[in-house]
């Protein structure tokens, strides 16, 4: 079951539609990391609303995606973790330390927009010749 990846502006949105096997999760990781480069993406959103279970392999793969995307210059947000899934994750001892999460897609996009603004303000200006 391949996860569709949509491109919206500078962001990639991977919207998980159904339960995923370990191979599906690994495939999603490869596809996202390749596309960060191909589309010069600045942000990645992984929407896990449809996932009814997150076990250690799923959490590890999401962490890998976030870290690999960051190494390629894109920020990742995991959105849509369901309340009972969060409960089971905590019981299992699984965390997403250092990785941005948001309630839903809308909040995830807002987070990336805020990150992007910070980035543009901090960037040194090029291509403009100031008069001395």
């Amino acid at each position, binding site marked *: 079951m391949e996860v569709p990846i949509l491109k919206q502006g500078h962001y990639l949105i991977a919207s998980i539609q159904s339960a995923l096997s370990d191979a599906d999760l690994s495939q999603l990781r490869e596809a996202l990391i390749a596309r960060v480069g191909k589309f010069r993406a600045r942000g990645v959103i992984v929407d896990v609303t449809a996932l009814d279970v997150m076990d250690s392999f799923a959490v590890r793969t999401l962490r890998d995606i976030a870290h690999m995307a960051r190494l390629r210059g894109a920020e990742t947000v995991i959105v849509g973790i369901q309340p009972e899934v969060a409960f*089971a994750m905590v019981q299992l001892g699984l965390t997403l330390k250092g990785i941005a999460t948001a309630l839903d897609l809308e909040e995830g996009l807002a987070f990336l927009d805020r990150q992007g603004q910070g980035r543009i303000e901090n960037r040194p200006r090029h291509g403009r010749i100031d008069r001395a």
Partner: protein
Amino acid sequence: MGVSTVRDELRCLIAADTDVVQARQTGRELAAEIGFSVGDQTVIAAAISEIARNILMYAKRGEVRFTKVLDGNRPGLIVVAEDDGPGIRDVSRALQDGYSTSGGLGLGLPGARRLMDEFEVVSAPGQGTRITMRKWKRANA
């Protein structure tokens, strides 16, 4: 344990990663039939996912069996994961957080144990592994 009634047994063969998904979905459906809350269904499915993946990782193949039970008038689910794989050399270490011989997170077994009410591991090197987990429906949940 005063388990009185055994009603059903279901088996899931574990030989591929899609079987792990099948096993946790079967467990969730049974848990729903028993009347577990959605939260407990998720907890049970997560525990099954961890022990089923362990079969795949260490033994390559095995099976997960599900039995609906009644202890007096308290319903519950028994999940048994069994394989003829290499076995576990040190069961108490395998139940510690962060201990892994596979390069994983080392949270599978100890995590599954925290999720379930009862958890037993029978294993020895070369003798395979049998994990028995039980979850009881709470009176008000």
